[in-house]
């Protein structure tokens, strides 16, 4: 069978060979088309190399295109044969009247990627860069990085030529290609090649107006990496890029947004900045209604980034981020995130009212995220607390089964109670929650329940029974739940010493031999504390904070210094993952940035000084770990170590923690 198959293929090749060498032109052409068809499918037709390149002598451009396609594919397999083509190439480049042929030849030449052929290429390439026809020039310019990649040692003269071309080139498309190809070489070369001066910038800006859209992207993208020398220059560049904001291609618009946002930092004039922001935001919002959800998604991911630096852009625009019912869920999740970020002291009620409706959606995961968002907003704005509790309790009333949203409900309610203890009184919240306590099945939700039972034991009629139930299954629980049960158990014991003495004994007995060192340590600490000074334990464990606690959640996505790098890569795939490019790709080096602080553009007109921002951040870091609910590590380590050496000095800290 194999023999038969081979034979047949050889037969096909044989036929093609005969046709290729036929004197009839049409027959040759048909044969070449067949060769290309085989090549596309992946059959090896490299044996016909000699016969194919013989056909190059015809001046038929269609035939030439086909043959070049063939040569590009097989030149690396047959470098020795490929040398024979060189003469033809050089002839095409030098002698042909037709710019199409010249460009075709140089384009194909660049794709050969055979080091020993490249030396023959340099001279024709130089000619083409100086060609009269822009079509040839634009092709030649892109040829340089192709050659540079394979044999950089041949290129210094050409690089100089490129720099000269940059100064005198007048065709927009050639300029755009030139910029792109020089940038590519810069990466390979590791040196800066493009030296911008005001004249060149002026020219690039002119080119943007005339260029095709992809060229506009190249140029805008390049200008966005440039640091303007002064406010005046920044202003000119911004002004010239403004019309791009209303381009139909979303990438062009987005590149313009990126450029302008970057240059805003360099402007001295505050009013101008405000006006510009007013012009940018409608464009970004239009991108959001782009008909492909995939593109909407990339824009949304980037907006959460932009928001951190430019809250001013979406002032009064929160409605834009309301979810419509027919959107894909990945868009809805992203919009939820943004709604939380965009929320401020003025519009939080509007946002909460919207979230209230999402709670009734069908998708449990979406509802869970909604509940989490409500919690986040309540933590940020004291005034929102009451409303948030009302919404969540209303939801709790209808809970009938253990599902995802219920888990989140417990977690968020616990955080809200921690923020303001007196919330337990409102809306019968405690009673309603207690009724559905059995639906908690995720460790985090269970530990939240355990906390609630311990904290509000005196207001829950059956708290001791409930705790007994938990402790009976102590060993089956997750570590997180065990730790919380310990603390809550001790709280109960202090509140009802006589009722709970058996209970605490059972608790300590089951926990003291735990394999988990954290659980074991905490057990011993409580045990010793209780046996030495119960009064101290009472002060420690049952400390009640007056009023609401001042903790907030840090919802910023990025560290300031990373934010700047991220903004420079706006729109790229790394930002889609909310990662820095070098975290995603090993081969990408990030430009070192010396700017340590980012200017934040707030709604209230005043530009907040970076130092203050830093201050807030530091404060937040010193906050107790309630905010780090996600990081369970912090949640138990600190109480344990702090309790161990509890003296008056760090008492306050400890109270907060428990």
């Amino acid at each position: 069978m194999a023999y038969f198959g081979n034979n047949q293929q050889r037969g096909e090749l044989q036929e093609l060979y005969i046709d290729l060498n036929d004197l009839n032109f049409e027959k040759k052409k048909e044969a070449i088309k067949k060769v290309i068809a085989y090549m596309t499918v992946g059959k090896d037709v490299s044996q016909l190399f000699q016969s194919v390149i013989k056909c190059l002598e015809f001046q038929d451009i269609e035939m030439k295109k086909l043959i070049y396609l063939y040569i590009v594919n097989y030149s690396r397999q047959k470098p020795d044969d490929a040398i024979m083509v060189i003469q033809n190439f050089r002839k095409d480049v030098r002698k042909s009247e037709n710019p199409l042929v010249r460009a075709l030849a140089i384009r194909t030449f660049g794709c050969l990627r055979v080091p020993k052929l490249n030396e023959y290429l340099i001279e024709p390439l130089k000619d083409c860069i100086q060609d009269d026809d822009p079509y040839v020039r634009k092709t030649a310019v892109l040829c340089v990085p192709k050659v540079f990649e394979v044999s950089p040692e041949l290129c210094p003269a050409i690089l100089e030529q490129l720099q000269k071309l940059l100064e005198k080139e007048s065709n927009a498309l050639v300029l755009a290609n030139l910029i792109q190809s020089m940038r590519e070489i810069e990466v390979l070369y590791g040196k800066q090649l493009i030296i911008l001066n005001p004249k060149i910038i002026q020219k690039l800006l002119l080119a943007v107006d005339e260029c095709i859209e992809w060229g506009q992207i190249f140029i805008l993208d390049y200008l966005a990496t440039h640091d303007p020398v002064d406010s005046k220059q920044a202003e000119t560049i911004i002004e010239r890029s403004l019309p791009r904001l209303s381009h139909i291609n979303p990438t062009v618009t987005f590149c313009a947004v990126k450029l302008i946002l970057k240059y805003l930092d360099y402007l001295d004039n505050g009013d101008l900045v405000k006006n510009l922001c007013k012009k940018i935001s409608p464009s970004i919002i239009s991108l959001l209604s782009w008909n492909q959800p995939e593109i909407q998604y990339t824009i949304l991911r980037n907006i959460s980034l932009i928001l951190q630096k430019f809250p001013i852009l979406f002032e009064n625009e929160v409605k834009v981020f309301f979810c419509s019912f027919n959107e894909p869920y990945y868009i809805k999740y992203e919009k939820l995130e943004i709604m939380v970020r965009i929320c401020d002291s003025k519009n939080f009620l509007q946002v909460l009212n919207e979230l209230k409706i999402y709670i009734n959606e069908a998708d449990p995961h979406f509802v869970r995220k909604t509940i989490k968002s409500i919690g986040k907003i309540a933590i940020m704005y004291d005034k929102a607390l009451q409303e948030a509790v009302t919404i969540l309790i209303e939801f709790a009333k209808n809970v009938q089964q253990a599902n995802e949203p219920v888990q989140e409900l417990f977690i968020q309610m616990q955080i809200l109670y921690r923020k303001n203890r007196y919330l337990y009184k409102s809306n019968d919240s405690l009673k309603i929650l207690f009724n559905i306590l059995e639906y908690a099945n995720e460790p985090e939700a269970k530990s939240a329940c355990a906390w609630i039972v311990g904290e509000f034991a005196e207001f829950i009629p059956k708290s001791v029974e409930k705790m007994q139930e938990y402790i009976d299954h102590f060993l089956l629980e997750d570590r997180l739940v065990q730790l919380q049960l310990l603390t809550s158990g001790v709280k109960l014991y202090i509140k009802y010493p006589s009722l709970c003495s058996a209970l605490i004994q059972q608790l300590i007995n089951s926990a003291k031999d735990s394999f988990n060192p954290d659980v074991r340590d905490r057990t011993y600490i409580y045990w010793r504390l209780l046996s030495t000074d119960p009064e101290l334990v009472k002060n420690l464990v049952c400390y009640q904070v007056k009023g609401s606690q001042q903790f907030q959640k840090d919802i910023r996505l990025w560290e300031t210094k990373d934010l700047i790098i991220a903004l420079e890569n706006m729109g790229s795939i790394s930002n889609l993952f909310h990662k820095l490019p070098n975290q995603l790709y090993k081969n990408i080096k990030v430009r070192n940035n010396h700017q340590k602080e980012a200017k934040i553009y707030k709604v209230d007109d005043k530009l907040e000084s970076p130092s203050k921002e830093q201050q807030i951040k530091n404060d937040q870091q010193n906050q107790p770990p309630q905010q780090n609910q996600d990081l369970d590590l912090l949640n138990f380590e600190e109480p344990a170590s702090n309790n161990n050496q509890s003296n008056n000095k760090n008492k306050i800290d400890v109270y907060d923690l428990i």
Partner: protein
Amino acid sequence: MFSQIFILSPRGDTIINRDFRSDLPKSTPETFFRQAKTYSGDANPLFTVDCIQFAHIKRGGLYIVGTSRFNLQPAMSLELLDRLAKEIKDFCGVINEEVLRKNFILIYEILDESFDFGYPQLMATEQIKPLIVNDPIQPQPDSVMNSLRPKIQTFNIFVPNTIGSQAVQRSVLNKNQANEIFVDIYEKLNVLFNSSAYVINQSIEGCIQMTSFLQGNPPLKLALNDDLQIGRQQGQYSAGVILDDCNFHECVNANELDMNKTLRIQPPDGQFVVMNYRISGDYAAPFRLFPIIEEISSSKIEVTIKLKACFDAKIIASYATIRIPIPKQTANAYTELVKNAQQETAEYDSNKKMVEWQIKKLNGGQERSLKIKLTLQATQTAHTARKEIGPIAMNFEIPMFNVSRLQIKYLRIEERGNTTNPHRWVRYITQSSSYVCRI
């Protein structure tokens, strides 16, 4: 940028494979296809395997794929592939496996002009037309296979199902064609009502789309409403048409828009979007929905929905579909239409727990209503169940009508002296995007 571009058949055979940078293994098409098959349903438009980014779109059942190892811009890559598909369609008339296989040389040509070293170059049909030497080969017109094939996907952003256009499925290279131009104004509505039919949020996404078969591509002048205004100031109310924002195709010169409300257009061949616009202000919603929910007993609920068409009586809306989610604990639902209702159906889908109400035709000014009688399972009471009803979502299409009142005053072909006066076709179409009433 892109390292390779390839086109795969639905079975994973390579139809076109162009390697621009030779920096990736030759086996990427197989890698792609294997990965794409692991998704249930359509594959993600963008995914990564071994540090290689694959971006793809699906057209006519074919995968058009771009690969890269760079930090590319996802929005741009998808847009590029989409443009490429549009070019191929402009040249070949349609995209399907047979046509692509027959025209693979032409497609290599298109690819070579559109991309160099993976960077996009000339990507507009009329720009590369002079550079292409091959003619498209049309597939056998009336073969049985063709008629069996599902309808070819068009590149309309909006695909109307009421008025078919003669403009689709035609190659721009066909020289003997009528000298004509089609102008479509599409508007998609987003409206959110609360239960008392008060509008909470509304917006319009619209576009003016042209399909040009004008010979010699003469410059055009398109005039819009005199009372058009672009950019909304806060707290401003005006009787005119206010667009919040708009953007234009490259061939459009919008310098005179503010002054004379005219656009100067240098039309390319084939289909293109002249202008996209967005309106967030108040407009009269074409349909109003009035839901009434009554608890008859602890296990019975009655939902009455009234629909009112608030537009001119001459205009007819078509394919209006209204979906009403009902409680999961519903035991039975019974729908009741007005007596001798015509071209109207209401059905209860017990799997999805949804009532679907379809109205084939609805004249402006008319009212319709539907009554749904629900019987609940014993486990739930009417009081808690009623919260699960809704939101009501509506889909519709209204031909020859637009909500924004944006209008084309005239479309003038600037080049005089041409003996034949080209045909100009103008259509208006309004569709629902998200038309929702909360209960």
